[in-house]
């Protein structure tokens, strides 16, 4: 039911007022109307009745006058009545209607003839009239019938004016209105009084409740009223008292509980302190364990790397075949041992959640290409095809941990190659979901021995291999897949394995990687038209998609006829022709006339892909090669890099030309002094120079360099700027200030950063070249040649790609151990608060990082150095931790 709208917001006082006033007002109005009307009616009736009475009286009294025709009698009769102000005039008419007395002369026909009064309405009143009848007296005892109508003697007319009636009506209306008004006022006063008597207690209750709501629980209603309101007030007071009691009780309970809690907290604090101590002990123990592990791994790896290094060196010496074989065995077993140690190290880190993932931008394709390139030798060695099918829809740059992705995939590919005796390993890259976070699927499928269902169940358990015979046949720690899986899970990805024994295995890695928005790099071979001949579906598809990924327009043919047709009919002609042959085809080709006609129809660069090395091809398939001249020979499986180079027409093995030799002896005879404080850098630079035939000497600081220079004359000085004892600038200045011809020795400066003050300081010292770290081999060699052989200098520019330390016989492990040593020294210095040592080692770290293009490490080392200079202990601690982390990660990547 809808409530009366205006009442909704009315307070109780107003409601009571309305409740009292509305009925009262209605009753007053009704009563006023009713009584006034009744009284007005009564007044009229009274007048009428009075007039009738007068008329009756006159009619009876006038009988004699009319009978006797005595007008005087009639006039006298009317005289006293005329004194009544309501009576205006009296007239008497005779039986014929002729006026005897009075002013009226009405039409007789309109007058009443029956024995009764009647009236006519006049302008200001009424005209009453009645016939005057002869009065009779009943004298018969036995009246049988009613007599005839009595004899009419005439009429009497009485004119009544309504002025008095009007006056009386006005009086009645006034009196009625006044009494109603008085009644209404009384009702309003009563409503006010009653309303207040109801509203006041309710307001008191309301105010008290308001106070109670505002937590003033001692508020009480003053009980002044009886009845229900009084009951309500008392009830509210009781309720408030109850609530107050409850609150007080609760408060006391809370105080008690708080006290109890405090006691418990104190106990807990004591326990926590104990726990903290226990935790610290545990952490210390863990730390000790980690340190032990790191130390042990280092201790294990260091001799092993040296074994490997020396075996490598041994391999380059003149050995007979038996010795060569022994050296290879040592190398293989050492490599296996190293990988086992790395696996164990990784596994222990994974187990203790010590691995932290990086989130940096990288190119997934490049990463995979690098990985494939790494595994190509082993694949080629086993005669297995290694295919890569990229997805053109894949985003170019993604964010994630490239080292770990590399590690996982490398593991999978290595496994695939390991367990495949014949056939191929296919790596398919597919973007499942594209968006800001893309889901990417990488499938590594092989045609290997496969794994049975039962074996699959134990596959991801540590130290368990599918078959104990596997260890015997294939080696390995049994940790590879476990590490792979753990790393995948750590990256939020998943690993799915599907295998059929005897048919092959497919492992699918699914990763969600953030897509990094970047301008799409121009496809390196955009629009290059390539004709691809390959009879095998899979290889054709892999090659085609790879080429298309680089932007080539590929036309793939499968038969010789199609090849000829494509060569003849296509215009404009293809820019490149790729011929991919299997071993059997290659043999068949010797007898078939395919290549000659193909060469006749195609004038451009032909790329020949076969399972043989170029050397084999040149020696065993000379006719084939001759038919195709000029041709670029690539061995299957080929790396992306090789293919790119072949498509570009560079770095390929052209038949007839001597195999390219990278190393030359162009710096032979040069004696170079390397002033570098970091031992690792000393080694690296010296190896680079030695590769080109130069002889090197090493000084650990500027002072030592100065001394050595004066003892043994050299052709060139490579001067690191930041060195302890005497820095590069001071040393250079000292050299220039030498009295002898040594003062004119060419100096090449090495800096991690091109700081303006350093440049300004170097300006007057006649420095031949300023090389920035990381050192680029080509730049270094060119700068040395320019300085000593007077060749023009190519502007030095930083190179961001990682140096390949292996080229200089320096292992990643060595770098990592060097970094580790520096960080340990920093730690020791920090513990001893030795700022000089800290600056020294941070400086060395900066040098190493700069030399090797480890930008993050470089930045961090710089920040540490700055913090040491500013003596900001907090920042020092922070950056030290950062350095430890970065070095540890670089160590992991080196291990992986």
């Amino acid at each position, binding site marked *: 039911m809808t409530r009366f709208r205006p009442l909704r917001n009315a307070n109780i006082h107003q409601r009571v007022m309305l409740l009292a006033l509305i009925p009262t007002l209605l009753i007053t109005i009704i009563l006023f109307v009713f009584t006034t009307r009744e009284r007005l009616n009564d007044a009229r009736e009274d007048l009428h009745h009075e007039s009738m009475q007068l008329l009756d009286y006159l009619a009876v009294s006038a009988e*004699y006058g009319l*009978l*006797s025709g005595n007008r005087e009698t009639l006039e006298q009769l009317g005289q006293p009545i005329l004194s009544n102000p309501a009576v205006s005039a009296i007239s008497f008419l005779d039986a014929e209607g002729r006026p005897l007395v009075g002013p009226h002369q009405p039409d007789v026909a309109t007058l009443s003839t029956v024995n009764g009064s009647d009236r006519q309405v006049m302008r200001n009143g009424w005209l009453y009239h009645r016939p005057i009848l*002869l*009065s*009779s*007296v*009943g*004298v*018969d*005892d*036995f*009246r*049988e*019938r009613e*007599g*005839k109508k*009595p*004899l009419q003697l005439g009429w009497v007319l009485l004119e009544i004016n309504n002025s008095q009636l009007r006056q009386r009506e006005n009086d009645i209306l006034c009196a009625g209105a006044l009494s109603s008004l008085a009644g209404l006022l009384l009702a309003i006063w009563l409503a006010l009084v009653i309303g207040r008597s109801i509203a006041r207690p309710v307001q008191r209750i309301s105010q008290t409740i308001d106070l109670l709501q505002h937590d003033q629980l001692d508020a009480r209603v003053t009980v002044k009223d009886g009845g229900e309101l009084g009951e309500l007030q008392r009830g509210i007071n009781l309720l408030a008292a109850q609530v107050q009691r409850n609150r007080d009780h609760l408060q006391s309970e809370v105080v008690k509980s708080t006290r109890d809690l405090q006691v418990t907290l104190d106990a807990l604090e004591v326990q926590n302190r104990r726990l903290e101590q226990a935790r610290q002990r545990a952490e210390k123990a863990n730390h000790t364990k980690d340190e032990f592990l790191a130390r042990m791994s280092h201790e294990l790896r260091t001799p092993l790397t040296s074994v490997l290094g020396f075996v490598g060196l041994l391999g380059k010496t003149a050995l007979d075949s038996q010795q060569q074989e022994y050296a290879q065995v040592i190398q293989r077993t050492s490599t296996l041992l190293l990988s086992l140690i790395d696996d164990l190290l990784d596994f222990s880190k994974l187990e203790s959640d010590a691995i932290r993932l990086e989130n940096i931008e990288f190119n997934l394709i490049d990463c995979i290409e690098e990985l494939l390139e790494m595994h190509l030798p082993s694949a080629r060695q086993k005669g297995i095809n290694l295919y890569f099918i990229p997805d053109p829809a894949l985003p170019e740059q993604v964010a994630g941990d490239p080292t770990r992705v590399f590690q996982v995939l490398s593991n999978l590919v290595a496994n695939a190659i390991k367990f495949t005796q014949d056939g191929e390993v296919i790596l398919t890259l597919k973007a499942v979901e594209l968006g800001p976070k893309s889901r990417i699927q990488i499938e590594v499928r092989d045609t290997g021995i496969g794994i049975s269902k039962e074996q699959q169940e134990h596959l991801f358990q540590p130290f368990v291999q599918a078959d104990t015979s596997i260890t015997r046949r294939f080696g390995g720690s049994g940790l590879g897949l476990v590490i792979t899986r753990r790393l995948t899970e750590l990256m939020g990805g998943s690993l799915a394995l599907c295998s059929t024994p005897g048919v092959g295995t497919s492992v699918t890695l699914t990763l969600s990687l953030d897509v990094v928005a970047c301008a799409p790099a121009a496809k390196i071979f955009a629009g290059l038209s390539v004709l691809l001949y390959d009879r095998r579906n899979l290889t054709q598809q892999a090659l085609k998609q790879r080429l298309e990924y680089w932007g080539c327009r590929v036309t793939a043919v499968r038969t010789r006829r199609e090849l000829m047709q494509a060569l003849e009919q296509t215009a404009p002609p293809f820019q490149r022709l790729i011929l991919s042959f299997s071993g059997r085809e290659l043999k068949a080709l010797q007898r078939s006339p395919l290549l000659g006609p193909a060469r006749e129809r195609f004038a451009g660069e032909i790329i020949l892909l076969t399972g043989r090395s170029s050397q084999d091809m040149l020696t065993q398939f000379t006719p084939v090669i001759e038919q195709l001249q000029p041709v670029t020979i690539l061995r299957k499986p080929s790396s992306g890099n090789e293919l790119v180079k072949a498509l570009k027409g560079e770095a390929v093995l052209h038949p007839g030309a001597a195999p390219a030799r990278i190393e030359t002896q162009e710096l032979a005879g040069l004696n170079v002094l390397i002033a570098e404080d970091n031992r690792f850098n000393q080694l690296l630079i010296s190896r680079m120079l030695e590769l080109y035939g130069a002889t090197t000497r090493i000084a650990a600081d500027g002072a030592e360099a100065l001394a050595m220079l004066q003892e043994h004359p050299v052709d060139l000085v490579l001067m690191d700027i930041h060195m302890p004892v005497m820095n590069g600038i001071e040393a250079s200045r000292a050299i220039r200030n030498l009295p002898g011809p040594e003062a004119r020795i060419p100096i090449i400066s090495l800096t991690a950063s091109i700081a303006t003050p350093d440049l300004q300081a170097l300006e007057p010292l006649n420095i031949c070249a300023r090389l920035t770290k990381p050192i680029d081999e080509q730049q270094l060699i060119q700068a040395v040649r320019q300085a000593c052989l007077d060749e023009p200098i190519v502007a030095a520019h930083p190179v961001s790609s990682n140096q390949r330390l292996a080229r200089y016989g320096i292992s990643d492990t060595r770098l990592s151990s060097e970094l580790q040593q520096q960080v340990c020294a920093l730690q020791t210095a920090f513990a001893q608060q030795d700022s000089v040592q800290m600056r020294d080692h941070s400086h060395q770290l900066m040098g190493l990082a700069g030399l090797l293009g480890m930008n993050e490490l470089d930045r961090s080392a710089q920040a540490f150095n700055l913090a040491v200079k500013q003596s900001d202990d907090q920042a020092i601690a922070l950056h030290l931790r950062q350095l430890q982390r970065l070095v540890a990660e670089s160590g992991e990547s080196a291990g992986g």
Partner: protein
Amino acid sequence: MVKLPQPLRWVLQRGWAFMACLILVAPVHAGDLLLVPSQSSQPYLQVVDHLVRVLEKSRVSIDIIPAGAIDQQQLAQHQLVISLGTRALETLLQLNSNTPVLAIMVPKDSFLSLSTAPAHQAARDAGRLSALYLEQPYWRQLRLAGLIAPGIERVGALLGPISRTHQDELHAVIRQFGWQPQLTAMDNQDNPLAVIRSLVGSSDLLLAVPDQADFNRNTARWLLMLSLREQVPLIGFSRRYVEAGAVASVFSSPVSIAAEAAQWVLNWQQSSDHRLPAAGYPQRFEISLNAEVASRLNLTLPPLEQISQALQEGNTP
């Protein structure tokens, strides 16, 4: 003869109309006497009541049928019919029955005028139709006048449309009493005031003569008023006349009418030839005096018993 039950008597005393309905629906009994009243007004009821009461004692069976509901068969079933009032008589006469009819409460002139037909005349002659007149004879009124106002000389009377036919008779009777008659005839259209004023002025005593009811009513007031004003005694003809202001009246009351009629019935029953006596004035009468008016007229009235006795003694013209 069946004795009337008490409830019936109660009804008889109270309403004719109701009674009539009862009788109409009741089976008709052959009875001795049939009462046919003209109307159910009080005097008629009184007369019927007295008649029934008196005749009950004589074991006469009585039926009562109002004049409006009577028919010939009902008449034929009774030995004697008494009509009460002029209308009842007129109805009975129109039915032309052989049943003997005694008319009571009927004025002499009305009876005579209704029974002028030869058959009725024959019936009167055969004693099957008779009447007991309502009014008193003039001589009885004049004797009363003499008793009340002994010293009068001129006796005036106002004659109406009916009574003027008796002008000579009245004239003669007044003369017999040795007084000078002052008789004035008046029409309904005449100014009564003027007529009566002259009559009163020329009379020592006024005699009210019964006439038509309207005439009686219209003239009575002025007769009474002017007689009082002029100190002329007025002798009325009914109890109501005395009550209205006449000094004395001689008249038949319902009781005396009923008693006399009952006597007639009994006589008729007991007679061998079942003949009704000839129509005539009532023998029984009452006298009513107005002492107040008499004192105003300075008259000394003899005691009522004395007057009554004197009238009874000379109950003949």
